[in-house]
């Protein structure tokens, strides 16, 4: 008890000297927590965006090779209605499955009457999507990509001939109106050449919310449909933002004259998924239904290339930066604590001369370093909380690589990662001080009392 008392007293007495170590510990841990908070923000945003907003589900189930070929060879690589029913009943029996979504992704050309652009249209079930986008985790992490411009989700429209247009494609098509705010109905044009090359063609095209979408049916016939724009959205990435459309599943099935779907998205209660669990699920499906399928976890590179590309980059960068900050903190803290202990050689010598054993002296320093570690770590946590709250409050916008819009510089530390950082810094301070004091207190009294600290 007395030894602990001496340790506490010593900590208070040496407060000026200890303040340098405290500041280093505080800044270092706050920096690492903030860095972890940045990585955590993107991990959560991209995870929820991949699973729920992009509707990959926890697992994506395709017919064998369907991921590559369902869009271009749906007859052979998309699920028939019978197969869909078999699979849906299989998943209905699994208590871990929350929802099963059906997606039909096809290709075609979209035109504003004057120019055509290729698109990939994703047909989904509007009611399920409304449920998914209203999940608390989606609202929390994906707020930047949930906006629908001035439009509304498909489930709000009686008319099912509606599409969602990705913002980049909308720009190419020179469209910015949605059904409810369109200035005019689609014009009846007889001479497209004159209409499209008129000086005011751009303004005319922009006044209505009408588009024509064209595709080749499964029977090989060209088909087209007049559609209205229900909303604009962002896919989150520059590349896909210029080529994507969405629509209710029924519209896409009508356009391509089919009842097939490209894939089923399985939403499990837990988002944890790996290639191994996907393989296990595939085996079960094949055994139970006899349908040859490919099952991909949501974080597979082919299913969520955006997640993998961005997170690989952020993790690599974050680890490299943490390594740099970590080495600076480690060496500086070890330097500070060692010098601090060395500086007190005479004090150690005096304690030894008074009869304190090596263990007791090391214990005094341990108490002192425990206090430094605790105060420093908590101060670091406090500083990071304050800094992060300040940064988040400022709503700083920046353009992450390849992201189609700006994103908030939002720091949200993960409690587990933050705790690990604090524990690491705490142990670093404690152990470096303990080792230095233990080594020093093993020296003889004479040596310690005559030591000049240099």
């Amino acid at each position, binding site marked *: 008890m007395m030894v602990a008392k001496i340790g506490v007293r010593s900590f208070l007495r040496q407060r000026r000297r200890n303040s340098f170590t405290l500041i280093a510990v505080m800044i270092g841990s706050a920096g690492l927590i903030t860095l972890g908070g940045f990585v955590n923000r993107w991990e959560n945003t991209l995870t929820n965006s991949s699973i729920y907003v992009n509707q990959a589900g926890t697992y994506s189930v395709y017919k064998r090779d369907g991921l590559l070929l369902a869009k271009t060879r749906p007859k052979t690589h998309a699920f028939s209605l019978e197969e869909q029913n078999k699979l849906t009943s299989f998943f209905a029996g699994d208590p871990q499955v929350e929802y099963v979504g059906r997606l039909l992704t096809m290709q075609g050309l979209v035109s504003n009457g004057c120019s055509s652009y290729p698109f990939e249209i994703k047909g989904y079930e509007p009611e399920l999507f409304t449920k998914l986008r209203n999940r608390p985790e989606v609202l929390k992490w994906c707020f930047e990509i949930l906006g629908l411009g001035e439009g509304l989700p498909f489930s709000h429209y009686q008319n099912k001939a509606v599409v969602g247009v990705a913002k980049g494609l909308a720009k190419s098509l020179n469209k910015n109106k949605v059904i409810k705010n369109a200035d005019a109905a689609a014009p009846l044009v007889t001479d497209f050449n004159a209409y499209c090359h008129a000086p005011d063609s751009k303004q005319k095209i922009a006044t209505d919310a009408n588009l024509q979408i064209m595709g080749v049916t499964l029977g090989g016939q060209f088909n087209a449909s007049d559609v209205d724009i229900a909303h604009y959205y962002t896919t989150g990435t520059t590349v896909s933002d210029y080529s994507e459309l969405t629509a209710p599943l029924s519209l896409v099935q009508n356009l391509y004259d089919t009842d097939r779907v490209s894939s089923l998205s399985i939403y499990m209660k837990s988002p944890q998924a790996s290639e191994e669990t996907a393989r296990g699920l595939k085996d079960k499906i094949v055994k139970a239904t006899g349908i040859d399928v490919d099952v991909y976890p949501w974080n597979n590179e082919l299913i969520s290339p955006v997640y993998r590309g961005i997170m690989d980059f952020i993790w690599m960068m974050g680890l490299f930066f943490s390594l740099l900050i970590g080495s600076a903190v480690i*060496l*500086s803290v070890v330097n500070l604590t060692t010098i601090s202990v060395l500086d007190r050689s005479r004090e150690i010598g005096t304690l030894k001369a008074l009869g304190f054993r090596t263990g007791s002296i090391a214990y005094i320093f341990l108490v002192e370093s425990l206090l430094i570690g605790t105060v420093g770590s908590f101060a670091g946590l406090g500083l990071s909380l304050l800094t992060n709250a300040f940064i988040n409050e400022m709503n700083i916008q920046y353009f992450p690589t390849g992201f189609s819009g700006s994103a908030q510089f939002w720091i949200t530390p993960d409690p587990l990662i933050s705790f690990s950082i604090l524990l690491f810094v705490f142990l670093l301070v404690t152990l470096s001080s303990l080792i230095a004091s233990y080594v020093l207190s093993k020296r003889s009294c004479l040596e310690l009392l005559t030591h000049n600290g240099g």
Partner: protein
Amino acid sequence: MFVKIALRNLLLYRKKSLGALLSIVIAFVSLSLFEAYMHDVQSMFEATFSQRQMFADVLIERDGTENPGRTGLDNESMNVTEQAWIESYVETQKESVQARVRFLNIYGYIANGNTKSIFAGLAYDVKEGAAVRGSKYGWNTYAGVPLDQANDPAPIIIGKGLAAVFSCTTHSAGPQLNGVVGYSSIARPFDCPEQLAQLQVNTESNQSNAMDFKIQGLIASGMSGVDEHLVMIPLDLAHKLFNTQLVSYMSISMKKGTAIDAWIETFNARASGDHLKIKAQRWQQHEMGRMFVDSIDFLAIFRNFVISIILVVVTMAILNTFIKIVHERTREIGTLRSIGFRPSFVISIFVFEALFLALSGGVIGVIASFAGQAMCNSMGLAYKAGFLSEKVPFHVTINPADFIWITGLVSVLTVVSTLAACVKTTRQPIAEIMADH
């Protein structure tokens, strides 16, 4: 004399000085390796955009277009008059212009056997394009040959994803092309069940048209999500297929030593003077270069963040060391003051000591940085850099010029820490200094 005393003190208090030296070296190595990482990422992206994507140095297109870099067969692409003006201007600039490439964005359906898919591709001047890609990216197909090497009168190269849809196969995994290394100029064999691909399009006047092309090579664009629809064909064939003379944009490769910004300024002034709505700009300022600028800005935010933390932590260590050094030498300071040395002289001794320490830290830091570089580059780590579809090796590339500002920065840091530690003590009355100890 300052120098002598300072050097002597460094040796005399070498244990403590070593502590400060270590902190300086850490700061130096951290900063230089960080900058080295930034340089590597920058050069990787620059090569990808400038050479591989053939953006060269300058991009020219319609001014004020809604879709920079993405215009196709619409009013926003450059017409024949504008192109002719640019051609004649470039002709007068032979001393500064190396090559110019014209591009047209093309869209439509591509059919191969029984498979039909949409395409979003690029038509360009093949010879000039090869010149802009240079030796590193001249050979831009991972299988087959680039357009400029093709013998067929109607050649086409298709993206990796599209090749998979058409069941085209290569005999080996082939080399990986990324921002660091290019392909070797070898026609690696590939097989497509159907060698002919038909492009079905709408012409500029909205008429349907189609043309057969022979698949000559397979290309990986380097950008995720692009390869699934990518095709590349010669510009003259595209003009014939789409029955147009439009050009989406042009890229200009400048000769070494050309003042690019001045060239752009003159070009824009002349074009404006001739009432043409065309604009030249560096590709980095163009919408298509936004990914590059965003990446570098993003890294810069982190650089500032990391530098701030490292500097504060290291300053604490240096400050602490110098406070101890000064404290232990209070008697020495008192003695110097009592024999007539002014406070500024004593402070100068400490400042010189700090400077020597910073310079020694710089020298050791340079060696340690190169060792760090060798270590990082030999680890063989590869990662996906954002939207580049192929993994890139984790490399750092030290730029020796960085050593100058880093040495300057750590020197200032060390000197300021030293001043903070010694000014108060040296300015005290001599009796107080001697009594304090």
